């Protein structure tokens, strides 16, 4: 009886398809990787064992650079417009609302805000700007800014208040920022840090080992 002879199959696999997939994924990851945008304000953040990832949207960020200069950054453009309008109304600053809306950060005393907004965006570099004056406790302008921010968010879900400070910033400016937060009844804020593992043998390390949840 003649039996149909099974063709002998080769054990070699066609790699072309796999190669295609690999490079498709590769191009996807290359394209989606967000490279850190060239930062206008250079800040080296300290390390901490905090495990919570910093919020990426809906934030109000106070930046403290290495000379202790303070900048304010926020991501909600609609709210920025509200703030600019209310500051124009209450302090007659005559700000260019559109420019204010598009400004990445704020870093000048209230009096010279208009000239700050006149600088083209790409020329606004943290080291050349005066920052928001905070050190004089009687005239801490960050208080005014944060009040305007709070008013803009009145009745809405509060944004996350972030503080991004540089390692070398001196404590008085940090304290001035905390005071500005306190004066506006903001008692909870978060500080941006780089992640770090809990040191071996410490209580926190032991808690992590046993899987106990820690209070954040």
């Amino acid at each position: 009886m003649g039996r149909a002879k099974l063709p002998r199959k080769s054990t070699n696999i066609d790699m072309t398809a796999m190669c295609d997939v690999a490079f498709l994924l590769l191009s996807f990851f290359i394209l989606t990787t967000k490279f850190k945008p060239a930062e206008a304000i250079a800040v080296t953040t300290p390390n901490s064992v905090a495990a919570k990832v910093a919020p990426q949207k809906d934030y109000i960020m106070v930046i403290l650079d290495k000379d202790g200069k303070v900048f304010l950054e926020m991501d909600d453009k609609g709210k920025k417009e509200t703030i600019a309008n209310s500051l124009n109304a209450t302090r007659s600053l005559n700000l260019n609302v559109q420019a204010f809306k598009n400004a990445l950060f704020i870093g000048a005393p209230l009096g010279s805000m208009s000239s700050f907004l006149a600088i083209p965006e790409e020329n606004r570099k943290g080291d050349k700007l005066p920052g928001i004056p905070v050190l004089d406790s009687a005239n801490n302008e960050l208080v005014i800014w944060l009040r305007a921010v709070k008013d803009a968010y009145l009745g809405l879900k509060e944004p996350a208040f972030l503080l991004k400070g540089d390692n070398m910033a001196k404590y008085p400016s940090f304290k001035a920022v905390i005071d500005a937060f306190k004066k506006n009844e903001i008692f909870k804020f978060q500080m941006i840090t780089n992640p770090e593992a809990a040191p071996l043998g410490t209580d926190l390390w032991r808690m992590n080992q046993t899987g106990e949840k820690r209070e954040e």
Partner: protein
Amino acid sequence: MAEMDTSGGGGHKKGPGVKKGKKLSTRVDLTPMVDLGFLLITFFIFTTTMSQPTAMKLTVPKDADKPEDQNKAKESGVITILLGKDNNVFYYEGQLTPNASNFKSTSFKEIRTVLIDKKRNTPEQDLVVILKPSSQCTYKNVIDILDEMAINVLKRYALVDILAVEESLIKLSEGSTAPTK
């Protein structure tokens, strides 16, 4: 497919003495290319997710205007940590004695053992850590000491303004001892 076909056409003969040029396949082995591709993919996957900054929470209390509104702490359970310039750390337990005999100097490396000792020897409900950064210390110092609270799971701590006496004591000790770092 996907490998060099080197077997050629060895099966058929043209005749004796006729040499046949080896027929090379145009197929290329793609395995190393795939390897490289996946290596890069792994690299990109890891670099995109690993560098997320974290946020450390800090809750500050409302300023109490009247002294009687302020929190009371048992003297035996209090340790005060002072931060000086150049990463110097000082501490004292309980109240500062008038002659400053319990004012001790330490460093960021050793403060952990001090805190652990204090934590082991004090009942939990009495333990309070008071942090007093001086005007000379940096933001990093403050974060480091707050981090130390998290590392040693100290739940009761407070950031307090430094007193003039303490500031001058720090100046004095920094003048006498060479900075550690």
